[in-house]
């Protein structure tokens, strides 16, 4: 078991180290989040609706779009110079490879999620709840569930001619539960409702994440093997 976790961490750390050397994906996703918020500001007539009132929904849409951009690049580096073959001959089971990718993607997207919330708090005066733990739990579950599904599907789009343009078609219909319950509970928590009211949403998000992770662990081997 410990050996398995070490393998997962080795894969994840490889990706994170590549990222730390270039900051490519984080820079792109971070800039995307800030600029999307700027566009939201100008896209709305404040006489009709203040961005704060629909902040929860906007936050989730921003996260999904930024994440989509980052996830599409999950296997980009591996596609060059036959690095994917190198990764596949490594003495690591396919599911460990998948979980490693999910871990590194979750850490990266988690950073972007925190930035998104901070940007919304700063730009639109969204009041953050005094006890941040329930909100953190919702965002963390949402991030891992999204990444679990997105990593699996980015493996598919990396192997297809259509590439990243296929990812939203595959991913968006399946993200409906995540966005529904994620933004509903975020809205409740930002409005200062007691965390107990979000228990149902949290349960559904947990179920979503577990289903996505299980599907990825079981099915990933079929999409990387020829």
């Amino acid at each position, binding site marked *: 078991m410990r050996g398995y976790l070490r393998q997962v961490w080795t894969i994840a750390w490889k990706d994170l180290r590549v990222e730390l050397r270039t900051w490519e994906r984080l820079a792109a996703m971070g800039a995307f989040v800030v600029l999307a918020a700027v566009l939201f500001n100008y896209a709305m007539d404040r006489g009709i609706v203040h961005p704060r009132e629909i902040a929860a929904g906007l936050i989730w849409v921003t996260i999904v779009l930024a994440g989509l951009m980052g996830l599409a690049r999950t296997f980009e580096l591996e596609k060059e110079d036959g690095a994917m073959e190198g990764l596949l001959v490594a003495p690591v089971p396919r599911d460990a490879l998948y979980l490693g990718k999910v871990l590194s993607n979750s850490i990266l997207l988690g950073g972007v999620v925190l930035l998104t919330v901070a940007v919304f708090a700063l730009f639109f005066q969204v009041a953050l709840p005094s006890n941040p733990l329930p909100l953190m739990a919702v965002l963390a579950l949402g991030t891992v569930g999204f990444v679990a*599904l997105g990593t*699996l*599907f980015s493996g*598919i789009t990396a*192997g*297809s*001619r*259509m590439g990243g343009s*296929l990812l939203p*078609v*595959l991913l*968006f*219909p*399946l993200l*409906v*539960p995540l966005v*529904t*319950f994620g933004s*509903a509970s975020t809205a409740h928590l930002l409005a200062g409702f007691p965390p107990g009211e979000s228990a149902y949403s949290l349960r*559904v998000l947990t*179920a*979503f994440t577990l*289903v*996505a992770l299980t*599907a990825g662990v079981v*099915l990933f081997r*079929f*999409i990387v093997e*020829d």
Partner: protein
Amino acid sequence: MEKRRGRFQVKAEATRREASSHMTLRAVRWWGLSLGAVGVALTIVFHWQVFFWVPTEASMGIVQRIFYIHLPGAWVAFLAFGIVALCSAVYLWLGEEKLDHAALAAAEGGMVFTTIVLVSGPLWARLAWGTWWTWEPRLTLTLLLWFIYLGYFLVRNSTQNRDRGRKFAAVVGIVGALNIPLIHMSVLWFRSLHPQPVVARTDGPQLHPDMATTVFTALGAWTLVFLSLFILRYGTARLEARAERTSVDMGDPLSAEQGAVTS
């Protein structure tokens, strides 16, 4: 001498395999056409029932008759999606090409009936609720189902290596089906405007007996039509695969080249 017999045996086995696949194709044609004939006949019967025979529902009036087209369409769409997921899962497990062909056939049939639901739903909604589109749970679910099917077809045809495309599509089919219950929960959570279930209830259908007869005729008719399309499309896919193999065997330069690229 030994070598010759070996080659002969191989050839004989190939002929036998070809013959047995010929038999299955004949069965495919027979079942496909006969189920289709019964299905089409029942479709005509239920349309006659819908237009001339069944009593008009008291509160909703004449519009309610769309329901006899809408509900069987939805049932078949979900049946098809179940078959896609099941065949895809067993395909990944056993690697049998036949199962992938079955999944493809079910997906194409499912797409047809999902489209029927998506057309008849808004037509009914316009007259009953005064709007073409509402975020009504089951209608939304059907729309998402339609897009999951779309992704299934796009992924299938987006790879150079055909086997990879099949595996990708199978993964999409399985993950889509796994997520259907969760998507259903979320769309339901937005409060439902949809009429409550009237057929599938534990205390028996709450319908006028003539209405029940019409619904069940329609359900049977379209299930048979779907099964017929499913079987015939499956047969076509098998024939396509065989034609491809034959043209590669014959050394047709174009196909041989393609075969080399795709394998």
